[in-house]
């Protein structure tokens, strides 16, 4: 990267690391919260394992509301919450909070779709064999949906890379932030180009990894 000054090279590596941290941490949180949420939505849906409209409706509403709020607005709207959780509202750590929240809602829906793809016949067979509801969820639903869950996570990771660039605008750092500050505001096209290429490679890598994992996991 001799077209960049040594200082910029250091900044670039730092920014890449920040992006990895933001995307990785928020994705991990989103999976941790999104999967139980999706299971709850799926199981309580009409015709599910234990239908419960009283739980399903409000839950679905909250998820939808979060999903339909534009990320930039969500980020600003939850600043008090972010301060409460991260102790600050600026920086990489603070950016993880809104990213994780948006990704959780996003993933919950994607996961729910993956769960819905599971063949009802297999569930029915498990019931006929005397499985409890918990056994059906743990031993049938999740394992059968696993390739779909991984594919959904890949989609979320790729979206998070894009969102993390926006988080840069509130001081979250990362590659997007670097691109804006140097490439755009200081008019250094070579920085912008480098950032874009790295982002493309990053996304490609994530996608390929996800696809490979899905192929390994599914036996269809």
């Amino acid at each position, binding site marked *: 990267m001799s077209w960049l000054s040594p200082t910029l090279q250091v900044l670039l590596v730092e920014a890449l690391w920040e992006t990895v941290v933001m995307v990785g941490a928020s994705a991990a949180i989103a999976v941790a919260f999104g999967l139980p949420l999706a299971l709850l939505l799926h199981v309580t849906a009409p015709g599910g394992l234990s239908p419960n409209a009283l739980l399903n409706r409000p839950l679905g509403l909250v998820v939808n509301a979060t999903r339909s709020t534009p990320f930039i607005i969500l980020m600003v709207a939850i600043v008090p919450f972010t301060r409460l959780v991260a102790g600050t509202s600026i920086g990489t750590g603070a950016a993880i909070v809104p990213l994780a929240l948006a990704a959780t809602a996003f993933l919950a829906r994607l996961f729910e779709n993956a769960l819905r793809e599971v*063949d009802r016949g297999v569930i029915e067979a498990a019931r006929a064999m005397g499985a*409890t509801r918990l056994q059906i969820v743990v031993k049938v639903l999740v394992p059968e949906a696993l390739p779909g869950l991984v594919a959904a996570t890949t989609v979320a990771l790729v979206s998070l890379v894009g969102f993390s660039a926006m988080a840069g605008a509130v001081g979250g750092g990362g590659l997007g932030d670097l691109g804006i500050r140097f490439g755009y505001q200081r008019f250094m096209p070579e920085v912008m180009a480098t950032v874009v290429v790295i982002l493309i490679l990053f996304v490609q890598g994530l996608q390929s990894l996800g696809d490979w994992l899905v192929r390994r996991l599914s036996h269809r």
Partner: protein
Amino acid sequence: MASHRPLPRVPLPGQPDRPAPDAIALDGVSRRFPGGAVALDEVSLAVREGEVFGIVGRSGAGKSTLIRTVNLLERPDAGAVRVLGLDMLALDDAGLRAARRSTGMVFQHFNLHTRRTVAENVAFPLEVAGIPTAERRARIAELLPLVGLEAKRDAYPAQLSGGQKQRVGIARALASRPRILLCDEATSALDPETTRDILALIGDLRDRLDLTVLLITHEMAVVKAICDRVAVMEAGRIIEEGRVFDVFTRPAHPTTRSFVAEVIGLDVPEATLARMPPPPPGTIRRLAQVLFTGPHATCPLVSEASRRFDLDINIVSGRVDEIAGEPFGVMALAAGGSAGQVGAAFAWMRELGLIVQELDR
């Protein structure tokens, strides 16, 4: 397979001829789905221990709903369900799960776990029942040879043929040593030859493991191949029921008749009929299918009828077959003569116990 059944059934001393108790007894079972469809309309049914009982009917007749009420995958709105003497509707959750383990179920689309190998699929009901790993392994080692799948133990369902998948389904259904096997269209996704293999396997397992089998199908050929008794369903009701041989040879209901015709009906070759000269003036020619059961010899009957009633009788086609080990003959004949005599001849044959069905053309 001496190890399969831990408690062999021993005839009760002093009661050698006691009739076998009902393995499955449905009494006035009704089920109406929200939206109006009456899937079951006061169905009563008794499946005896050790028999293969078939339920046949057209699509939408309520067959699946019926078999699903046996292990309460479908809860009836009204009626009683007793399985092996147990009042299923009175059970709590844990009791119901235990009862379900004593009735294996086999499905049309196999319903295997795509991400589990053959061995892992068969292990599933044992896992669910909390059987320890070592015991599970031992059980799988006896189950796979039973269905001829030792070589495929580590294959995934996607790598198996339809017939092999159903063998996995059967092994899985038998894993927890059930005494009842429920089969919902178990062969409907298979080709005719594989269907025969799977039915032979089910029949063989019934004998070896002392199973009671309740089997649903829309194909009379399946009933003919394996069932002892059969019930015919239409619009949520059982319209006819009896020993397979009786239902096949003496169907009472028109729907049953059309089902039976699929299997034992005769093709009357159009060309043969066309080649026959027109009946002489003043006479008629009627076509009838005649079914012989029991000791009748066909030829003397035809020539005797011909002589007695002064008829010309052509045998258009004929064949001898058997149902559940009982032989029967069926033939199509064209009887020509005066209208009165033809009718009298058919009546005479019926009196002799033949089943005469006039074929319209």
